């Protein structure tokens, strides 16, 4: 079954928006390969005729009346923010220098 390379782990970490150090990449790649090897055993267990289950119990969409209900105040909503400006979440710059 597929071995997961160091380069692949770096790519996945990039997709998941996590900076991994060289040490972490060295450490993670072989561990993930062992895990993948173990979980790969399920390939072929279920035939094409078996439907997938995303939720164990049947779900139906839940609606409610479109009326205003009490929610968080702006102060409460912002209370855990790393930075706040003019009653808004203050975030680092979104665009790069060249944009």
């Amino acid at each position, binding site marked *: 079954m597929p071995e997961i390379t160091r380069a692949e782990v770096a790519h996945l970490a990039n997709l*998941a928006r996590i*900076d991994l150090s060289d040490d972490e990449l060295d450490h993670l790649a072989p*561990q993930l390969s062992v895990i*993948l090897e173990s*979980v790969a055993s399920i390939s072929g267990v279920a035939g094409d005729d078996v439907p997938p289950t995303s939720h164990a119990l049947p779900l139906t*969409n839940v609606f409610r009346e479109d009326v205003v209900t009490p929610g968080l105040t702006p102060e409460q909503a912002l209370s855990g923010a790393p930075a706040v400006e003019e009653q808004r979440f203050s975030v680092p710059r979104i665009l790069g220098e060249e944009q």
Partner: protein
Amino acid sequence: MITRTAAELAAALAAGETTSVAATQAHLDRIAEVDGAVHAFLHVDAEGALAQAAESDARRAAGATRSALDGVPIAVKDVLATEGLPTTCGSKILEGWIPPYDATVVRRLKAAGLPILGKTNMDEFAMGSSTEHSAYGPTRNPWDLDRIPGGSGGGSAAAVAAFEAPLAIGTDTGGSIRQPGAVTGTVGVKPTYGGVSRYGLVALANSLDQAGPVTRTVLDSALLHEVIGGHDPLDSTSIDQPLPALVEAAKRGAAGDLSGLRVGVITEMSRQEGGLSGWQAGVLARFQESVDLLVKAGAEVVEVSCPSFVHALATYYLILPAEASSNLAKFDAMRYGLRVWPEADASAEEVMRATRDAGFGDEVKRRIILGTYALSSGYYDAYYGQAQKVRTLISRDFDAAFERADVLVSPTAPTTAFKLGAKLDDPMAMYLNDLATIPANLAGVPGISVPSGLADEDGLPTGFQILAPALADDRCYRVGAALEAALLEQWGGPLVPPEEKLS
């Protein structure tokens, strides 16, 4: 005071023999005495708990108690949002976060009058089976401080086992209530999926997570389950049906008569050969004795095979990381939690990457990467898609087994508590602790773990798992209480960790 069960405390409060303030203070004193060694708590709220206890006493004096457990203190796993109290999920990325709202479970505890002692330790974002993945250091097993208390809810189980709290709340995604219960000699219940609201529970895997009771007796779990369970419009997966009569089922079970009950022993999870492997001899011995006690109480035993269960662990470790990697995307350093600047003028993306590197621990990173891989184009069908199909097969095995048996039984965990550090660098070895508990989460069915004795090899607790069909949580309580009563009679009293180990 602290060795009383929640039901006994409630009775003493009702009889006017003690007060909620006295009961709460006794548990706070116990925490001060032993939690340096056990480390079950991440945060203790002495002031808040005593204020809630005083209010409870005032209500009682005015004849206005709110529930059977009004005034009985409780500990809450740090994965549930508590207004005004820190909620870290055992992670550095949420260090210092104070939620502006209560989880529905917490709101119901407060409405029922239970003083909240504090928040309990856990593996980071509930990822683990030993509580060693907490960013704030491991919890230790009260039976042997060099051993793990199970996970992810090791803090809640250890708090109850060490008499730091009569009751606690846990959450169970693949066994995080039941496996800690087994290795600490306590009772833990995973309700039917949707039976207890997930609103305000920081999600690990939405389709698997379920909050439930952590206690020392089956009756206490039933009492607590009735407080926290039932429909919640704030959770769209909440079951819109009344709970079964759980306390009544526990009382009926304790009377000891199981005539007419069919108990299914799961072949794949009850012997060394012919299914899943790795069972400790002492665990299997205590399991067989408990089965014999159920027979003595009148139950009929049938052997049932659930062949897909051997694939449950692999299925789980594809579905869980896939859901977790999506859920944990919300920790982006923008609206709450940690924000790390790699350099002064870093972009939002660079801040996000640096924050997630600094804020997440090894196990969380492993599972996010694994989930990202399982969901990538080109691998999706082979991994996540296949896992969802095997999930169907596991549910079908349960359906077939419940045709032949009213409840299914197995040991809760394959071994007793292992030494701290023993499996920390071997993720697969760690994952194997959950092989008996995972199928219930995949199928959404309820389960309970009841202490079944001490293993001969090491003198450490073992657990007996009882699984019932979805919505039939009352059967777990009936059979659990019957087994508990029979074992207590045999032992002459409850199993208690040796006090000298805690000092």
